[in-house]
């Protein structure tokens, strides 16, 4: 039903190659050109695919735009590669078809200098005006003659310019604002209390992770993963190590896999807990924030004992774990599961879920429809609130999730209230997963044998996804058989979820905008990378 390969076959000049899904993470690779990319994208749109990712790889002799398309209901991933001349890279914009391309193309434009014709606002999103070269081009920093931004394009550097001279009322939310959870900046054009337009400005915490990926070895990059999404650090650890393992064909022993699952799910709970607290604080209730931190500290105690840190974990290694866990870990985890089930969920139920003010503030606020979600590539609880049971742990199982039984809670399109309920139910599901994993935890080694000291994956690329607390996390690694990745790209879920905000903010009250922004569960360092 949703295999567009026949339709794609008739497009002129499109090379279709089937790839090995097990080591590559995608089923087909399409070689498109600037001439037929719009046709190709249209086919994917007709078949209900979403634009999972759009990035660029500088192959020195050519710039290669890489599009990934995935489907919410079926496991079928397409990579579309498009070669451009690095001297004059230009390509038609697909932002009219896929709305998330509006942001993704701006990102590619500022980091690689690729120009998209037909893009309505091709200005800088992450970088600031003092950077007058393209940071992710390979000639930077290796050569001194960096690719400078052409004089004519410098106007794009200013990412937001107020053009209207009328008496429009602009409010700058952020980068320092209590409810943007970090350094997100949203420029809001208002009419009284109502929002006319909202435009996010990103990059206040751009920490060059993708650039660092290129000049560090695979092992050296491990700590960075925990600093991208500090709330779901272990999920990012997992995404990275499983991606490299996939590329190298390493299989970690089952004990390591189960411990990975337990810690990842614990981390998921702590992330969701923090969201619950922070969201209620956005709505004006401060006490739940402290209650959830109480629970969070219990998780941190467990994780600290095995990982050595409280927040920015760097726990997994290629091929397994650095150290085995002992009895106290499982004991403490079991005790935590009991504690959550017996007292904490009912506490939150009483304190938050039943509160009429909470319900009236969140019900039908920030509703993300299925169509809008697909056009923006939304994933995670935000997508599931629209009723789609899309969870990478089920759709594209990694680690040993396939053998565990758990449900995917979905909403009925009720907006933020549904997202809240989904996250609470997901915590319960995580407890279930943890219980099963503890019960199934086998004895044995925690490190695969024959993992080389120097990680040098075979040449090629891999696209690997895991389910982070915020949604689908994608890791794209291009290897050239050296110990450093040739290119590393991260598909971060909050970024895509944020893209729906300008649309859902239009016409709502300022107070609702705070509720919507909070419901998306944004982690800014993850967006800015």
């Amino acid at each position, binding site marked *: 039903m949703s295999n567009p390969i026949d339709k794609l076959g008739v497009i002129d000049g499109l090379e279709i190659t089937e790839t090995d899904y097990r080591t590559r993470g995608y089923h087909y690779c399409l070689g498109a050109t600037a001439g037929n990319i719009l046709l190709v994208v249209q086919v994917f749109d007709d078949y209900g695919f979403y634009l999972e990712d759009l990035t660029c790889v500088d192959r020195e002799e050519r710039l290669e735009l890489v599009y990934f398309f995935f489907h919410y209901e079926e496991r079928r991933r397409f990579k579309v590669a498009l070669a451009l001349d690095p001297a004059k890279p230009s390509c038609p914009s697909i932002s009219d078809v896929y709305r998330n391309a509006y942001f993704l193309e701006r990102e590619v434009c500022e980091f690689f200098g690729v120009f998209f014709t037909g893009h309505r606002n091709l200005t800088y999103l992450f970088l600031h005006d003092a950077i007058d070269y393209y940071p992710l081009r390979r000639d930077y920093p290796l050569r001194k003659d960096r690719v400078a931004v052409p004089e004519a394009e410098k106007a794009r550097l200013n990412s937001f310019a107020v053009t209207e001279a009328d008496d429009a*009322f*602009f*409010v700058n939310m952020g980068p320092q*604002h*209590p*409810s943007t959870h970090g350094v997100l900046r949203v420029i809001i054009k208002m009419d*009284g*209390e109502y929002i006319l337009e909202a435009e996010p400005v990103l990059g206040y915490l751009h920490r060059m992770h993708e650039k660092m990926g290129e000049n560090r070895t695979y092992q050296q990059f491990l700590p960075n993963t925990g600093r991208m999404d500090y709330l779901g650090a272990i999920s990012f650890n997992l995404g990275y190590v499983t991606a490299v393992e996939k590329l190298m064909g390493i299989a970690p022993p089952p004990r390591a896999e189960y411990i990975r699952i337990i810690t990842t799910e614990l981390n998921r709970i702590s992330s969701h807990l923090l969201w619950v607290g922070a969201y*209620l*604080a*956005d*709505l*004006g*209730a*401060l*006490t739940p924030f*402290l*209650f959830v931190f*109480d629970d969070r500290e219990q998780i941190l105690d467990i994780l600290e004992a095995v990982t050595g840190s409280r927040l920015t974990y760097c726990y997994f290694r290629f091929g397994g774990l650095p150290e085995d866990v002992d009895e106290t870990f499982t004991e403490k985890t079991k005790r935590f599961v009991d504690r959550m089930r017996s007292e904490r969920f009912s506490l939150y139920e009483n*304190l938050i879920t039943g*509160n009429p*003010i*909470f319900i*009236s*503030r969140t019900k039908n606020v920030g509703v993300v429809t299925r169509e809008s979600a697909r056009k923006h590539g939304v994933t995670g609880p935000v997508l599931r609130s629209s009723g789609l049971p899309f969870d990478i742990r089920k759709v594209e199982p990694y680690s040993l999730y396939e053998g565990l039984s758990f449900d995917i809670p979905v909403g009925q399109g009720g907006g933020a209230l549904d997202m809240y309920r989904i996250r609470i139910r997901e915590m319960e599901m995580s407890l279930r997963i943890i219980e099963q994993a503890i019960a199934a935890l086998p004895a044995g080694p925690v490190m695969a044998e024959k993992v080389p000291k120097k990680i040098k994956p075979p040449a090629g690329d891999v696209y690997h996804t895991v389910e982070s607390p915020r949604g689908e996390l994608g890791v794209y690694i291009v290897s050239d058989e050296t110990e450093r990745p040739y290119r590393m790209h991260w598909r971060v879920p909050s970024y895509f979820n944020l893209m729906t905000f300008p649309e859902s903010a239009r016409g709502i*009250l*300022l*107070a*609702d905008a*705070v509720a919507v922004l909070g419901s998306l569960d944004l982690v800014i360092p993850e967006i800015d990378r």
Partner: protein
Amino acid sequence: MELTALVEIFGRELLGVIVGLIGVLAFVVLNALFLTWLERKVAGHMQRRIGPKEVGPFGLIQPLADTLKLLGKELLTPHDVARPLYYLAPTLIFVPVLVSFIVIPFDRHLQVKDINAGILVVLAFSSLSVLSILLAGWGSNNKYALIGAIRSVAQNIAYEIPLLLSLLPIIMMTNSFSLKAIVEAQAGLWFLALQPVAFLLFFIAAVAETNRTPFDLPEAESELVAGFHTEYTGMRFALFFLAEYTNIVIVCAIATCFFLGGYQGPLLPGWMWFLAKTYLLVFVIIWFRWTFPRVRFDQLLNFAWKIMIPVAFVNIIVTGGLLKL
């Protein structure tokens, strides 16, 4: 000049008022200090932590340290503010709350002045505070402050009506505007038992009038940073704070007079009963703050105009009917 001469010139009454005002001023400041401590301590205990404890016994010196620090802070005047308005607002917000205390009977004889239109004085002066909030918001040259001020005006106008309407049945029952007379009328039975609906209406409106959660929209931290006082520093900000806490006590004192029998109570002296009842209500307001989320602006106004005001009118009519029977 000798005291007798002063008395002759100004009259015993005026002197009494002046002395009373000084007493009130002392009470206002002490009360605000105590309430900030109480707020932080109650919040702490509700949130499974301790709250201030290192500064003085039980952290009791904490508010004093805060006040001293605020006194020693730089008084920044941001660029391009409307200076007269910006300077006037914190002072102006403080005057009405002081005047309101004149008519509140702390005990049978502990009252600065028993005016026969007492409650009207309180309500009239408390509406003045919205003016200073508007001045602060308008004068600050800050968008958050402006939005906060606009919210505040709409909110205060909307909730002043049910505030007064909810008190009318009691005024009808006692045939008096004097707070003392109303308290005296509750010697046998508190009006809380006779007018529970009115009490509820009054209390909700009072929470809204004092800009406390769940109606703290003018200074909604997660939306407006600090609302109308975003640009105020040091003591100017402290005056807003002082006024907020004093307002809380005033509305709770009014509620005590109207519904909880004021200073009436067995055994203990009257002022103790009065303060105990008042602070109980204050505690409830603090409790609200640390439990409820904030309502939305339209929900807030809808609630006032569509629910509270009609209910208050029905309550007046029913009371009037019952009184006639």
